[in-house]
C-alpha cells in the first residue's frame, strides 16, 4: 500500500508509510457498523418475538388498563408530583435563604437538612413516613395517602431544590447588586428588580429537571401501601400485571411516564439554550 500524500510526520526513509489518521478513522467506523449489524441480526434471529409480544405488548391486556390509566393512575401521579413539587419549592426556597443567611445557626440547620435528605435513598424516607403514626401516636399526616406521598416527595425534593435556588442566587454576579445600589436602589429594591429576575432565569431549567425527577420518584408511593383510588402509574401497572400475570400494563405505565417526561426534557433543553443564547 502506498500513500500519494507524504506522511504528516517525516518517517525515516525506507520505513513503510503508516495509515493516515483519516484512513484509520474510516476503518474504525466500518468496524463499528459491522458490530452493530451483527448484533441486530443476532437479536432478530434468536429472540422469541412471539413470546415477547405475548408478555410485554398484549393488546387485550393493554385494553384493560383503560380508562383508569388516565383517569386514576396518571391523575394521581400528577397530584403527588405537583403537590410534592410545590412543597419542595417552598421549603427549598426557605432552606436556600437560610443557607445564605448571615445567622450561622440557620446555615447549620439548612446544611444539615440538605446533607441528610440528599444522602438518604428516597425510598427510605417513604418507609419512615409509613411508621410516623407508630412513632407519634394520634398523629396523622393531613391529606391521608395524598398527604403522605406529597410529604415524602416534598421532603426529599426540598433538599435538591434548595441547592438549585442557592446556586441560582449566587450565580448572579456581585457587580449587579453594586450597580443597583450605586443607582440609589435600596437592598430590597435591588433584590426584586435586579437579582431575583436573573436568578429565576438561571433556576428555571434545573427546576424543570427537578420536576421530572419528582415525577419519577412519585412511583415510590407504591411503598406507602396505597390502594384503590390512590394508586399512581407504577402501582397501577404493577397491580394489573400481577392480576393478568402479564407485563403489558407495566409497559403501558412506562409509556405514559414517557408521554410527560420526554416533552418536559425537551422543554428544559430549550430553556437552557435560551438562557445561554442572546435572549
Amino acid at each position, binding site marked *: 500500500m502506498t500513500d500519494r500524500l507524504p506522511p504528516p510526520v517525516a518517517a525515516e526513509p525506507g520505513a513503510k508509510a503508516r495509515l493516515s489518521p483519516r484512513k484509520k478513522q474510516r476503518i474504525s467506523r466500518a468496524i463499528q457498523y459491522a458490530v452493530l449489524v451483527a448484533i441486530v441480526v443476532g437479536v432478530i434471529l434468536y429472540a422469541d418475538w412471539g413470546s415477547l409480544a405475548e408478555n410485554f405488548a398484549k393488546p387485550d391486556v393493554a385494553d384493560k388498563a383503560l380508562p383508569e390509566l388516565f383517569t386514576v393512575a396518571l391523575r394521581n401521579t400528577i397530584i403527588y408530583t405537583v403537590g410534592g413539587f410545590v412543597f419542595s419549592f417552598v421549603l427549598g426556597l426557605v432552606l436556600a435563604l437560610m443557607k445564605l443567611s448571615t445567622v450561622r445557626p440557620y446555615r447549620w440547620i439548612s446544611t444539615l437538612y440538605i446533607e441528610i435528605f440528599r444522602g438518604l435513598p428516597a425510598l427510605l424516607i417513604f418507609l419512615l413516613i409509613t411508621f410516623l403514626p407508630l412513632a407519634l401516636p394520634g398523629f396523622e399526616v393531613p391529606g391521608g395517602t395524598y398527604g403522605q406521598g406529597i410529604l415524602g416527595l416534598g421532603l426529599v425534593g426540598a433538599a435538591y431544590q434548595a441547592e438549585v435556588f442557592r446556586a441560582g442566587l449566587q450565580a448572579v454576579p456581585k457587580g449587579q447588586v453594586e450597580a*443597583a445600589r*450605586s*443607582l*440609589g436602589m435600596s437592598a430590597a429594591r435591588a433584590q426584586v428588580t435586579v437579582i431575583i429576575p436573573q436568578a429565576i432565569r438561571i433556576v428555571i431549567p434545573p427546576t424543570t429537571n427537578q420536576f421530572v425527577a419528582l415525577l419519577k420518584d412519585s412511583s415510590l408511593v407504591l411503598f406507602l401501601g396505597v390502594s384503590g383510588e390512590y394508586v399512581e402509574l407504577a402501582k397501577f401497572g404493577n397491580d394489573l400485571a400481577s392480576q393478568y400475570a402479564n407485563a403489558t400494563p407495566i409497559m403501558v405505565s412506562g409509556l405514559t411516564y414517557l408521554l410527560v417526561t420526554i416533552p418536559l426534557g425537551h422543554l428544559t433543553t430549550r430553556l437552557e439554550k435560551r438562557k445561554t443564547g442572546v435572549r
Partner: protein
Amino acid sequence: MTNAIEIRDLHKHFGKNEVLRGIDCTVETGQVVCVIGPSGSGKSTLLRCVNLLEEPTRGKVLVEGVEVTDPDVDIDAVRRRIGMVFQQFNLFPHMTALQNVMIAQQRVLKRGKKEAEQIARTNLERVGIGDKAGSYPAQLSGGQQQRVAIARALAMGPDLMLFDEPTSALDPELVGDVLAVMRKLAEEGMTMLVVTHEMGFAREVADRVVFMDGGVIVEDGSPDQVIGDPQQERTRTFLKRVLHPEG
C-alpha cells in the same frame, strides 16, 4: 463654596489587611481628578468608600458637604447623586439598553415611564448610541456597553461621577469611544473622580492627578507635575513601567 468630595484621614481595613492608610483628598466642584497607581494600591477601595459600597473603617467622607460616613445619613439618597461606572460595566443583562437607563429613574426617582424614557433616550444620544436603545447588553460591544453604563448613571442627574478603570476591560480599538464621551462630560463641567491607567487622558483632561501606592497618596498635583515631573521615586518607577512597558 462646598467641595464636591472631601476625604479626611480615610482608613479601610479588610481584616488585617490595611488597604487605605490615611487618605486626605479634595475634589472641587467641576474638577476632574484622576487617580493612578499600581494594582492593589487601594484605588478602587478609595472610590468605593466615596459612595459607601465599602464602609470606611475610620475617617470622614463628605459629598457636597454632607458627611456620608455619618451612620444616620440616608445612604440611598446620597448614592442617587453620585454616578458610578465600573470596569466590568455591570449592565443589567435581562434589560435592553433603554430599560437599563430607565429602571432606576422609575424605581428610585419615581419618574413616570414617558419622562424616564425621554431622559433615557437623550442620554443614550449623548453617549453616541441612540440607535442601540433596543439592544440587550449581550448584543453590544464592550465599548457600547460601557457607554450605556455611563448613560445609565447620567440619567439620574448626578452631581458627580466616579469611574473605576472604565476602559480597562475594553479591546484597545474601543477605548477611544469611551474616553471621548468622558472628555465631553469633563468639558461640560461634570465633577469626575477617575481611576485610570490612560495616562494620555489624565494628562489632557485632568485638573489634578493623584498617585497612590500602598494605601496612601504619594503625590498629588497638576498632571504636568505628577506625570510630567514626578518628585517621588515611587511615582517615577510606576510611570516608567506604565509608559514604557517593554523597558
